[in-house]
């Protein structure tokens, strides 16, 4: 009986250790970075960028990288490109008036303006995945969307 109890105890310990070591990594939250580089602009209405991000898995890292690119385009501008100025001049003001719409845009809707997205490099780490991507956006359509909902003003006064 004592042997059986010992056997059950050690088995339970082994199972617990197994569960702990196989547990999913902590969820990584999105953190905007300036790691967005201009690649090319085939025509004035599109822009190709290199972007990177870290996520808990490949899918999350990939989504974060795309979000990083769109947020830099919207709020910071891309040095060395034809879109040096941010599309949205005042992020704080825009968020206060159109927070819900902008939030939806950078998390979900941006896909409608993403013409292509290609993984250039990925590196798996203990607690997640780092990914570098090349993304191409349709600037004209993105601008039209923002103008339609008066997030930005159309050309003029």
């Amino acid at each position: 009986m004592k042997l059986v109890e010992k056997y059950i105890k050690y088995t339970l310990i082994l199972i617990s250790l197994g569960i702990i070591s196989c547990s999913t990594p902590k969820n990584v939250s999105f953190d905007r970075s300036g790691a967005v580089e201009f690649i090319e602009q085939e025509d004035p209405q599109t822009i190709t960028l290199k972007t990177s991000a870290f996520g808990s898995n490949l899918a999350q890292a990939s989504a974060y990288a795309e979000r990083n690119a769109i947020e830099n385009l919207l709020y910071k501008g891309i040095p060395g490109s034809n879109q040096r100025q941010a599309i949205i001049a005042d992020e704080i003001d825009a968020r206060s008036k159109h927070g819900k719409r902008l939030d939806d845009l950078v998390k979900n809707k941006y896909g409608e303006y993403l013409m292509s997205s290609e993984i250039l490099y990925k590196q798996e780490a203990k607690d997640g995945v780092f990914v570098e991507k090349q993304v191409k956006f349709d600037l004209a359509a993105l601008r039209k969307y923002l103008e339609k909902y008066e997030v930005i003003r159309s050309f003029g006064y």
Partner: protein
Amino acid sequence: MKHILYLLLATITINLQAQETTKIQPKIMVIPFAKKGESLRTVLESDGLQRVAATKAKEGFDSRGINTIDLRAKLKQVSNTEVLAEDANNDLKSQLISLSGADIYVEVEATKKAHYKGNTATVILTAYDAFTGQSFSNKVATSPSFRTENYGKLVEKAIVSIIEDFINTIQEKFDDVVANGRSLVVDISISETADYDFDLELNDGSFLSEAVEDWIEENAYKNYYHIQGTTGHKMIFDDVKVPLTDPKNGKPFRINRFANKIKRFFKKLDIEADRTVQGGNIVIVLQ
């Protein structure tokens, strides 16, 4: 109950109309750069490179949904006027701009450079306020180097690399206009037949020039104005800010009304004033 509902609906409708702001898209004309003594028409018709540059720049505006005034059509219109002197090439540009009704004109200059390692084209884009001459945007770009004689293609590459940034910079200036007002030029002169000048002493002891400057300061948007110069017979305010929209009704601010206000100011001083308004230029002649 029905009456209350109708009243509420009417109130909401009136409020919505009052809040509606009118968007103003300025008129833009793209012109090739012409040196002193050079005719715009000659540049456009004889220099293919300038034609390509002007067309690509115009395309950049068109693709953003920005309407532009057609230069060729305006050139034709200007050539039909009797005002134009054939050899006054510099006047042609001013005449063209003022007759076109353009609020902003964009000058495009393209140059080519041959090199044994590869040819390049350089483009300079400059946007000016048609009335005040203020610069809205300036960009210069050089194409990548290619072993080609197709300079038109090189010009195209140069323009594509800067046109969006160029237009975005113009838009930034518009944002500044919305916040700080648009610029007018107010030119006040005294007729040669008048028997007084700007040193005329008024009833309150001030000089006429002082009274005029005080009035401009009081009526300029956020009290901003700049005086270019004053003589005994002329006062030029080369930058007087006025709001973009009338604060009373939210409609576009009417420059003609401002000019009439100036006229009424002089009438109170028992001075007759003739006024001419052309776009953002107000010319007042005191009799």
